[in-house]
């Protein structure tokens, strides 16, 4: 075999085999993809992992953080109702790198919120955030996260108020912390308080997922408020005219409404014959408690995550 022939043969073999190998890798990925979740059922304890990582725990923490986010994102996409591994993954991440603040922020929201928006495990969320506070005494925002869980998921407004107060005392804390503390103490369950809290959380988050979540909550509060006002206007119209309004134009003519009402996403509300106001498409308006047309399922979050 001359040298030139050998070179050609080797080149062809090399490239074909490499291409074949890459194709096989794709196939491998596909059949392993599901198995991956199973494997993570056997997560080692964070302490052991930290010791095993030979000092590279920061890197390992980042890897686990990525996995946690990926895990949540994947399941969320599939509208899962259970996020079994979310807490273990976040817990390991926190143990590997206790100063990775975003772990606690993420956990405070997505561990505590009810499925499918979160794991529905507010107690675990509290545990996680409390660890974060212990390890990072200067991180006043974590008190806000704790207060959020206590207020919105556990409905313990006294505890929430105390959390905001603790956080407010840390040097560097923003003034709204004390405002929040007061609001929780006196107007715990009210929408205005929730609105204030979500606005603050929206401002203070850097993570895209957390920002999106806060925005969704604010939108939901807006919708709830809108529906309430609109249905009140409808009731007023009925009181005045002893008739059901057929559409919003009538309310506008009656001076009860200034313009055609639309939801925060710009879609007009619909008025039903029995006087209820509905959102047109609840599937991209999570967290709303009013305005869901009858027979429709509770909201599912859009893919913009």
């Amino acid at each position, binding site marked *: 075999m001359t*040298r030139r022939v*050998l*070179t050609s043969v*080797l*080149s062809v*073999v*090399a*490239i074909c*085999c*490499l291409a*074949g*190998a*890459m194709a*096989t*890798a*794709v*196939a*491998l*990925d596909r*059949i*392993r993809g599901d*198995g*991956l979740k199973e*494997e993570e059922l*056997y997560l080692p304890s964070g302490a052991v992992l930290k010791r095993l990582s030979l000092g590279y725990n920061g890197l390992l923490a980042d*890897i686990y953080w*990525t*996995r946690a986010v*990926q895990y949540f994102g994947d399941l969320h996409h599939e509208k899962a109702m259970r996020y079994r591994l979310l807490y273990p993954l976040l817990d390991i991440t926190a143990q590997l790198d206790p100063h990775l603040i975003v772990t606690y922020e993420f956990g405070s929201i997505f561990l505590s919120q009810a499925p499918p928006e979160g794991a529905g495990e507010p107690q675990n969320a509290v545990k996680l955030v409390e660890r974060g506070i212990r390890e990072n005494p200067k991180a006043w925002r974590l008190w806000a996260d704790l207060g959020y869980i206590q207020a919105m998921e556990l409905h313990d407004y006294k505890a929430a108020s105390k959390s905001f107060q603790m956080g407010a005392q840390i040097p560097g804390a923003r003034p709204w912390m004390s405002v929040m503390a007061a609001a929780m103490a006196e107007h715990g369950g009210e929408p205005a308080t929730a609105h204030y809290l979500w606005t603050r959380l929206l401002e203070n988050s850097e993570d895209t997922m957390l920002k999106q979540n806060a925005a969704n909550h604010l939108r939901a509060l807006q919708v709830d408020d809108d529906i309430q006002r609109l249905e009140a206007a409808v009731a007023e119209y009925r009181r005045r005219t002893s008739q059901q309004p057929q559409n919003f134009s009538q309310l506008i003519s009656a001076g009860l409404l200034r313009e055609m009402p639309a939801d925060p996403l710009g879609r007009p509300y619909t008025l039903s014959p029995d006087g209820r106001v509905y959102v047109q498409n609840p599937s991209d308006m999570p967290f709303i408690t009013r305005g869901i047309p009858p027979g429709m399922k509770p909201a599912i979050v859009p893919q913009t995550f």
Partner: protein
Amino acid sequence: MNARIGWIAFNTFREAVRDRVLYNLIAFALIMTAAAVLVGQISIQIERIVVVNLGLTAISIFGIIIAIFIGVGLVAKEIEKRTLYTVLSRPVRRWEFIVGKFFGLTWTLVVNTFFMALGLFAALLYVAGQYTRADLWLLVALYFIVLQFFLMTALALLFSSFSTPIMSSVFAFAVFLIGTFADELHDVAQMLPGVSKFLVNGLAYLVPNFAALNVISQVAHGEPIEPRLIALNSLYALLYSVAAISFAALIFDRRNLK
């Protein structure tokens, strides 16, 4: 032609075995397995898991280290020390040399793994008192580890064919690390926009997938390995090794020796 590859392989095997480094590593692995037994005694009910995890991980890591350091030495060191001259002045084709070295080292690693595996099964018997059907899957895990060695040896030879001993070792080790985290690389790719996503994903498929060949924790829990995975992994290791060796032969064929 085949005879020469055989002679080169045999000679490589002999050199490796007589090189005392190998003996030290075997001893080390035996010590590790002994440690596993001790650890297992502290936590009842999971001794089997601990022994399997620790034992297989040790076999895997030590084998990879041997594959890298000796693999790199097979060509790069021979070029530096010029032991290669008297071999290549004979009717030995350069690609025969590479292929012979490959078989020699992988054979060494298989023998090495065999003895370590004996130690592991002995430790397992000691700890669990008996063998279960689940232990058969250990053989699959060991087979996958051997496939990892094939990949790593081929890559060490590839880097060795154009680089100095030190740089070859660094490259080989780096590729091993990246290949171990191939899954994470895919995850990162998912989070990137457009072109970056495509490039990073492509890189993730280019890099040798050591993660797929690692079924240690599954086997530790006595879980079966599906036949499809065994078939695909075998195919993957075969194709990738052939590709790497072919590139190594191509590069080496054109190399001006010091």
